């Protein structure tokens, strides 16, 4: 057997090992029910901001804490504590992905991804006279 073949076998072994560890190491998408059944485990939760409830951001007290209520895809509502500053334009978000863990009565997120209104919001064509005319 040639050294090249040995090298190839080693490579294949590393690839398989890497795949298995990557899968084991990965976190997963879940809803609030699953996250609260497994407190302190990390999950990605997708949902929508509940605009009817108050959002609390008191930067003078703690600029790295922002509280709001989110509904997950199954419409379960949960208090969320984001340990970051309030994202700019948060109110406009259409969809939120939280990364964090359930603790007590709240979901504590250390990362947030927002989907803002897509490029195709209905009736966006501006009818104002353009400056050229």
């Amino acid at each position, binding site marked *: 057997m*040639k*050294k*090249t073949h040995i*090298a*190839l076998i080693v*490579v294949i072994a*590393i690839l398989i090992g*890497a795949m298995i560890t*990557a*899968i084991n*190491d*990965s*976190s*997963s*998408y*879940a809803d609030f029910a699953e996250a609260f059944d497994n407190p*302190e485990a*990390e999950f990605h939760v*997708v949902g929508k901001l509940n605009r009817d409830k108050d959002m609390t951001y008191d*930067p*003078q*007290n*703690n*600029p*790295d*804490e922002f509280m709001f209520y989110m509904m997950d895809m199954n419409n379960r509502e949960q208090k969320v504590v984001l*340990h*970051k*500053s*309030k994202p*700019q*334009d948060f109110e*406009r978000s259409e*969809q939120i*992905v939280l990364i*964090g*863990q359930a*603790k007590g009565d709240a979901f*504590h997120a*250390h*990362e947030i*991804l927002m*989907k*803002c*209104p*897509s*490029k*195709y919001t*209905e*009736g*966006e*064509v*501006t*009818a*104002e*006279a*353009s*400056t*050229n*005319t």
Partner: protein
Amino acid sequence: MIYPGENLVIGQIGNIFTVVAFAGSFLSMVAYFMAEKTQDEGYLRLGRIGFLTHSLAVVGMVSTLFFMIFNQYFEYHYIWQHSNTEMPMKYIFSCFWEGIEGSFMIWTFWHVILGLILYRSVREWEAPVMSVISAVQFFMLSMLLGVVFFDYKLGSNPFTMLLREHPDFSALPIFENPNYTDAIDGRGLNPLLQNYWMVIHPPFVLFGYATAIIPFAYAIAGLLRKQFIEWVKPALSWTFFGIGVLGIGVLMGGAWAYESLSFGGFWAWDPVENASLVPWLTMVGAGHLMLIQRKKGVSVFSLFLLTTITFCLVQYASFLTKSGVLGDTSVHSFTDLGMTGQLVVSLLFFCFLSIYLIAVNFKKFPSQESEESITSREFWMFVSSLIMFVAAFIISFSTSFPVINKLFGTNLATSGERIDYYNQWITPFAIITALLLAIGQFLKYTKTDMKMFWKNLAISGLVSATITISIAIIMEMRNPIYISLLFTSSLAATSNTAYWILFLKGKMKAASASIAHIGFGLLLLGVLISTTQSEVISSNTSLYDISVLGDDFSNNENILLMQDDTLIMGDFFVSYRGKKEEDNFIHYEVEYMQPNKEGKLEKQFTLYPFLQLNPRMGNVAEPYTKHYLHKDIYTHISYAELEDRDEKATSEEHSIGIGDTIFTKTSFMIFDSLDRKATEKFTGIGANDLAIGAHFTLYDVNTQAHELTPLFVLQNREFPMTVSDSIPEAGIRLSFEGIDPEKESFNFRVVEEAPKFNDFIVMKAIVFPGINILWIGCIIMGLGSFLAVWQRIRRK
């Protein structure tokens, strides 16, 4: 209805170009393929005609679309969607490739340019190579056709889709106006893309992607002709050209992210970034295998594997970013245009073509005659190519989680902070790669004299050990993995420098490998130092300790600055001085001070992190960075209140006696005395009028005293009139409204303005040490790659 303002001719011209380009690529593909099969000159000529027609038409398409953007034909959906009248001219180019159609178009344009250079220079390889290139073009143009076949829309065409015919907008009342074109403005460019990096980065990356077609076309040609080795020679310089272009393109993306995105760094392992890095890694692997092949011979299978997979990964990158499959895992992917099916077909076609041709020829691949020695250069070059492949695979695998989830219904997601997740995976590869880079040049082909090898390496080893130890001590680096990378990357830089000076005598000839490797070593060094030693200097000001919640929550990363307060932050004292609005930007002025010898604070510099306001697409915070030679201070606004607080003035009635005090929100005032001689002060008073003044002393927030004397006047001793007095600095207006003789009290009304709201910002500041090493490394590496190409061209 007839719309006289619409220019429909230009769209038709563009459309004709598209159809001609599509037909031309088909003709060229088939004719060149037949030329290869039959060896008939006639087919060859037909193929050339096809490709030239195709090239002219693609150039025509690009020019037409530019013309339409320049002349602002907003009646076309693409133009309306990506530009508007307010946009500065310099960003016109960004509008072109902001959409999928434009970016495909520029990509096909690069293929055409490369194809035109190739078809004059490929000589005996012309038929199969050009046939492959035309086939790629055929697939790409099908995505620009915009023709409906049996209810399936093939591609998306920027020339045919009018705004008023677009399903989302056709019902709008504005289109009842025949002259709507006069009243319409475009939607404009995404504010994130209004940046000079965005003018050059996308076409550069697309050019890099485009270069992958040449080695791929040669490899397929080699497989078709069963000339498994001969194709390597012409493909080699093109591969290194691609490595240079794509490498610089990818790092430009990093520079853009660092300059204008506020995630705090130059690399976020975003799926879109990964998608562009991965083909670069395999391309580097393929290029090095080709080098071994030219010198000694290499496993033909791995050569074909890496060359074809590079092209397939480029197609995969295009699929990831353009199909919308990344969804919520990436901030900057395109929205789905319904082309997913087509993208998948194109991707699978080229993957299966490669797999099929490799499989049927596998048995015929020449085997290597001799066993390579473990001390030979070719063995270790082979190993490093495989490492590139493995690293590419690992990054791809995690990046593909959304795809895997779609295919198998799983719920995989990368855990923890994405950046840490990938850094942890990729660091071991970086250490090994750097080590191989360091020793590679000192190894000889076939067999190395190990005594000489260690002797040669000794000096660089000593130098880099010194560098490692001093950096580790100064920067307090303790992590053994980081220290290993620190050592191997500085060894890579120093040993290649040593090789260049000692063995090549500093000559440029044949120095390309050393130079590129010095660059790569420095790049890794810069990445390591700036990433691991970066320090968030803006920390939480509150007393509330959030780190008790767990390790994940110790991110006290932001500082709150009230206007004109001065707070300590890292080595500096910072003060937020105010904001300036300019067009749709708000610039926040933040002053950085340091104490001088006399102990007084002295201004060092001012940074203006800013917010870009865009009501249509959301506001964007953009960073502002102070560059030093050895470090950068990078800041961005995390939060700022955009609307002024709309608080109303308050009005209160008080009934008090002499000597009493009225308290307001920010001040208090004492009713000292009645001034019966007030009549004299008030000039508007007639002889019969009676005026009484109430004398007050007001103390404001700063305990400054002010005098106030509002008057109560009885005109003709009958009709009451009030003359109020005010202190604007304190925001107080006081009026004397009446006298109550029974209670012996006097009635006053205090109108108080809302206290002036103190403006504040929440800001993040990070120090990146040694980031310039990264940029310098990047430039040197690019130079090295292009030097390699230049030397190969000259040798011919």
